[in-house]
């Protein structure tokens, strides 16, 4: 791609990533959450692949980096699910505990980040999984169908 597109995408990638992380982090209060936030982050990486070409991106962001990210996100997710095994498999064992444990008053309230129990951390885990997964799909497909230089 031309020089202009590369410099603009260099700047733009920061805003896309911060917006994606914002949507992932505030999933339990505002609309959004793990899936849409991960898709936003993956679209940022897709922008890099379009701007710089898949071979250039492949030098820094290799496929096994995404594989490690995906596996760790999934392990966090299933670890939280196993965390509540005392009561039942997917029991929300962090409600009322010091970690993300506040319970907001019933009805409309301004929203408090420190709520949601294990579902907040699951949000972040799903955000990691979706962003690593979708960008891995885009990168692998771009590499496979790109011109071998």
């Amino acid at each position, binding site marked *: 791609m031309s020089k202009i597109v590369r410099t603009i995408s260099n700047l733009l990638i920061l805003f896309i990533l911060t917006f994606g992380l914002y949507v992932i982090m505030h*999933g*339990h*209060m*505002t*609309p959004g*959450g793990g899936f849409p936030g991960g898709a936003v982050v993956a679209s940022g990486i897709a922008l890099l692949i379009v701007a710089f070409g898949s071979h250039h991106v492949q030098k820094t962001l290799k*496929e096994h980096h*995404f*594989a490690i990210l*995906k596996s760790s*996100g*999934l392990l966090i*997710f*299933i670890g939280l*699910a196993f965390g509540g095994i005392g009561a039942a*498999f*997917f029991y*929300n064992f962090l*409600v009322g505990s010091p970690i*993300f*444990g*506040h*319970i*907001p008053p*019933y009805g409309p*309230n301004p*929203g408090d980040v420190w*709520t*949601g*129990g*294990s*579902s*907040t951390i*699951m*949000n972040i885990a*799903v955000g990691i*999984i*979706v962003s690593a*997964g*979708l960008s*891995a*799909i885009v990168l*692998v*497909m771009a*590499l*496979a169908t790109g011109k071998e230089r």
Partner: protein
Amino acid sequence: MRKSAAVISLSILVAFLIASALLIHPFGYPPSQMDDYIIQNAQGESGANSVVDTIVFDYRGFDTLGEATILFTAVTGVVMLFRKRKKETTN
């Protein structure tokens, strides 16, 4: 012959779809006993403000676990399909 069989079966299916579209509950007034319970109790049981997020991760968390494995399967499948074939004996 094959073409007419396909067209007939498709028209029967579309007729069923239109019939179900006309007979379903009116658009803005769904029956909602389960959802009213969830809307009342979502904040109390899981503490999150967003009821949809509570359902996705707390009431029906097992679906989202299946969901994450589906994405993991698809990515592993795509990466496996486009792998470089180094030493491979054709048997």
